[in-house]
């Protein structure tokens, strides 16, 4: 996703002179092409994320379109107050890009993992949160984010994620994308868990269960129309995200559901637990530990469909 982002921001900034890219001392080689083609509009803000967010706000106040870029945890929790006061309170069109959302940097420990960022940022008024499901969605999400007049948090994976879409889908902020149709179960894949949601649907098919796969790329605002349709059509709706069970998309859907009358479906949440990941290991190992695998999701859904039989 990050390579797709770098390509797209370069292409967009070549056309739009208001775009400025601020980096928290990462992405050196990644943005070589940008720096070559978009002279004078790349600012390495150093290892100083709090300052970077306020600088972005100041630039936006003067009519520029700042895009900040660093690792998701440093883009959010490190500088939450600057995002809250300088960007969200002023309702400025700053795009905050967090690379390596969730467990992408599992091997670097909780300092580099970002399983609470959606919780923190979704509490901020004016903030929109987009979690693209693959590289193609990342490209489209950036384009749409730059059309907003308000802050957007763009939560990217890292690199090499499987492509889910073979052709560019219709992409609108707050409008989920139906990736494949199903009739019994609805899997709401969030961000870099979308490929896993698709894999879980395949696993369910082997058990004779047809699952609809949806890219719920916008964590805020939720696509309530999609949720209303899903909870009335299916018997199970599952959220699948690389984020804590506390305050993530599953929580937001549960909050919506609690106030939505007469819904048919049961909600299942697949997320990281309310504890830190205290061990070495890369992303896939961390996902295995937390049950964020296609097999485990499939098993959980089968148990919910046929209690006592699996």
């Amino acid at each position: 996703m990050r390579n797709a982002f770098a390509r797209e921001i370069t292409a967009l900034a070549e056309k739009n002179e208001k775009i400025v890219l601020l980096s928290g001392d990462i992405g050196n080689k990644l943005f070589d092409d940008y720096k070559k083609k978009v002279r004078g509009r790349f600012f390495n803000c150093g290892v100083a994320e709090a300052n970077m967010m306020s600088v972005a706000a100041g630039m936006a106040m003067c009519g520029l379109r700042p895009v900040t870029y660093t690792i998701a945890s440093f883009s959010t929790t490190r500088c939450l107050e600057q995002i809250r006061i300088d960007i969200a309170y002023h309702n400025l069109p700053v795009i905050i890009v967090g690379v390596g959302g969730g467990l992408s940097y599992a091997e670097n420990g909780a300092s580099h993992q970002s399983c609470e960022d959606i919780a923190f940022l979704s509490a901020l008024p004016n903030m929109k949160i987009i979690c693209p499901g693959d590289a193609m969605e990342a490209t489209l999400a950036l384009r749409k984010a730059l059309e907003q007049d308000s802050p957007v948090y763009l939560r990217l994976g890292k690199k090499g994620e499987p492509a889910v879409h073979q052709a560019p889908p219709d992409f609108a902020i707050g409008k989920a994308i139906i990736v494949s149709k199903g009739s019994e179960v609805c899997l709401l894949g969030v961000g870099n868990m979308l490929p896993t949601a698709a894999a879980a649907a395949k696993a369910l098919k082997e058990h004779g269960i047809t699952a609809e796969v949806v890219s719920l790329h916008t964590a805020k605002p939720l696509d309530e129309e999609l949720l209303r349709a899903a909870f009335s059509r299916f018997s199970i709706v599952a959220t699948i995200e690389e984020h804590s069970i506390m305050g993530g998309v599953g929580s937001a859907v549960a909050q919506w559901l609690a106030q939505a009358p007469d819904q048919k479906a049961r909600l299942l949440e697949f997320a990281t637990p309310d504890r830190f990941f205290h061990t070495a290991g890369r992303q896939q190992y961390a996902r295995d530990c937390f049950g964020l695998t296609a097999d485990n999701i499939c098993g959980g859904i089968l148990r919910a469909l046929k209690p006592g039989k699996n």
Partner: protein
Amino acid sequence: MNDSGRPRTSRMTNNTGELESIARRIRRAAVRMSHDADVPHLGSSLSCVDILTALYWATARIDPAKPDAPGRDRIILSKGHAVSSLYAALSYRGFFPETTLASFGRPGACLAEHPYPGCVPGIEAATGSLGHGLSLGLGMALAGKTLGLDYRTFVVLSDGECNEGSVWEAAMMAPAQKLDNLTAIIDYNRWQATGRSEEVLALAPLAEKWKAFGWRTQEVDGHDMAALLRALRAPSGGDEKPSVIVAKTVKGKGVSFMEDNNNWHYRVPNEEELKNALKELE
């Protein structure tokens, strides 16, 4: 807010006598606003009045009739708790009617105890949490360079505010970006909320710290109008450094029983104190 015999305060002037008269008028307003609205931070408001006067009446390229002009100079009061003085300055300079000042702190009024975004014309940023203004100003200065606009950006900080790490993040970035269009003014009244600012954290030597960070550094008496005007002149010499003015001030300046008395960080004047303060500020 009747204030008979006041000078014409809506136009620019380099006359120090006039500027001092304007500053007294702002101080009178700040004392009244604190009393009437039962709002603290009066000592902090009074210490930065001369700095604000020098900026708004004698330095900044601003037109109150065009508060959003892209080429205007930007002034940020990063020590947002002193906003009563800023509201009075903006009002007297012509950004909004003077009658509005009487609504300070009232429920539903646009003049809150810390400014919110877009509350009144002339407020460039909502401040209140310390340590944000310099970075915001840095962003504005960087935008000016990027857009090819020649405006200057001024940020007024408190000395206690320099406790915040983000101030020093900005202090390192501004010289790296050669932002000679950025000027920080530190209202060095030597007090913060609960103690001497040189004792709470190791603030001194403050000017030397900024110099070491690569800033063009000046130290002035923050109540000497002529010295402030000189220090605020656009830098020449082409060294491309951002500027910092360490303005030595007195908390509670202008009211004898408030001067350098940190009780007035939180205290609000009663009727008798209001009367005595206004008398001293005539």
